């Protein structure tokens, strides 16, 4: 209480300065890693875009290339994990959320095309990798609640699913062009189940709501393809022999 007590302890601002500088450094490091991740994801997405001009018989070759490209993503996500886990997860997650979401997207797409199988779960066309399986592929935890470290979130996964339904809707059309009339049926069933899933969620008025609402258009686009094929009798629908469609034959 003496008159010469200073207003402030210099340590206060020295500490704040350290914190701010550390923050800048973390941000810079993350920016660099995320940029590399974005490039790796873009390369994989480039390969993925070839699926639209690839007949189904040649999917295995494409999938092998995809798996190779995904290895690069896995390495970089590993680095990201190393840096990000030193910090509170939600302090910086906006820096990488978008790129990680896209990386998850490439993995589930590759998985859907029959890639990324293992001994327990062989690759198979039309397979949906769960969030946990995606986490295993990237070698990072998922949906962490009890400790503060890097992980893949439910939101990232769900957003990437909406990318998948939209990509598959495009694939349905192109499969027909390649003379593959079976694939649209697989896709149609998949997208419908996906849409039913999204309808179970209580969504807030946010980006996920917007994207989930759009899934119904992906369903419709594939339904239109299936309709065109059925109308022309280009597909046999097993187990639906009693529909009017079959009766008309």
């Amino acid at each position, binding site marked *: 209480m003496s008159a010469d007590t*200073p207003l*402030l*302890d210099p340590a206060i601002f020295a500490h704040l*300065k350290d914190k701010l500088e550390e923050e800048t450094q973390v941000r810079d490091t993350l920016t660099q890693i995320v940029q590399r991740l974005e490039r790796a994801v873009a390369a994989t997405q480039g390969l993925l875009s070839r699926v639209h001009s690839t007949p189904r018989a040649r999917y295995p070759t494409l999938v092998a290339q995809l798996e190779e490209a995904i290895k690069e993503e896995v390495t970089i996500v590993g680095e990201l994990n190393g840096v990000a886990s030193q910090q509170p997860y939600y302090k910086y997650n906006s820096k990488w959320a978008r790129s990680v979401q896209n990386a998850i997207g490439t993995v589930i797409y590759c998985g859907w095309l029959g890639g990324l199988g293992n001994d327990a779960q062989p690759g198979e066309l039309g397979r949906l990798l769960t969030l946990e399986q995606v986490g295993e592929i990237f070698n990072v935890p998922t949906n962490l*609640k009890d400790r503060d470290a890097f992980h893949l979130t439910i939101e990232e996964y769900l957003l990437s699913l909406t990318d998948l339904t939209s990509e598959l809707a495009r694939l349905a059309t192109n499969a027909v062009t390649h003379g593959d009339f079976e694939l649209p049926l697989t896709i149609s069933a998949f997208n419908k189940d996906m849409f039913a*899933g999204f309808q179970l969620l209580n969504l807030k008025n946010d980006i996920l709501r917007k994207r989930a609402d759009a899934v119904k258009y992906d369903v419709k686009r594939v339904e239109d393809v299936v309709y065109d094929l059925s109308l022309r009798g280009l597909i046999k629908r097993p187990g639906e022999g009693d529909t009017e469609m079959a009766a008309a034959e």
Partner: protein
Amino acid sequence: MSSGVKRDRDGNARTKARQPAGPPGRFHDMFEGFRNELDEHHDRRERIIKASRDVTAQSKKIIFSLQRVKLLNQDAPPHIQQDIDTRLEEISKLLNGVAPDLQSINRYRYTSPLRCLEEFIEALSFAHYLRHQTLITHEQSQAAMPTNIILTPHDYMYGIFDLFGELMRFATITTAQTGELAGREGRNILEDIQELGCAFEMLPAVPTKDFRGKMSAGRQSVKKVEKLGYGLVVRGSERPKGWVPDMRDDAPEPVSPV
């Protein structure tokens, strides 16, 4: 597709057909899990937003009460102290209610719904300044938190940013009332706010709108108090010593000196 038909034609409520049209989709269970997780998240967020709004309101009222204090380095008058204590207790209840939602990984997850902490630190730091004429430290602020919510450096810094405005208002009111700048021998509020201003100027700039806005508001406050000091030297001699303007306890702030 009927939309929300719940009664038959006799007006009897229909038992809701709960079973879905077909078998549940392949991803039914997975999405149900996600739904539960997302609901938990949204509920937590709502609770925090509500508590935060109330804590902000209580903190603002504490600050209003503190602005009625007239003297530095003294205990606040009992009626003011009592008012503040009641409000602190209320804040303590509110924050304790959401503390479980803000542990571990969730502390930073809900940083933006928890903006009330800035306001609360502003109140704490202002009370601390009035009593001790020193700046509260981060550790002291954390110790003053009525619950086990971690105070981030960000909360602390942005709370202190807002202290500038309170110091300026306090300086303006007390100068008008007493005809001199509040303080004790060796240090008055003008020097204090200048020193605090310098400390912030020395910090590395954070490239956010929030930081720039607070910084410029802080500078404005420093300038206003500087003008007060200038006014006292230039015009102070025209006023008899001990002259007190006719002001009620809670009269509104005098016309801004700028």
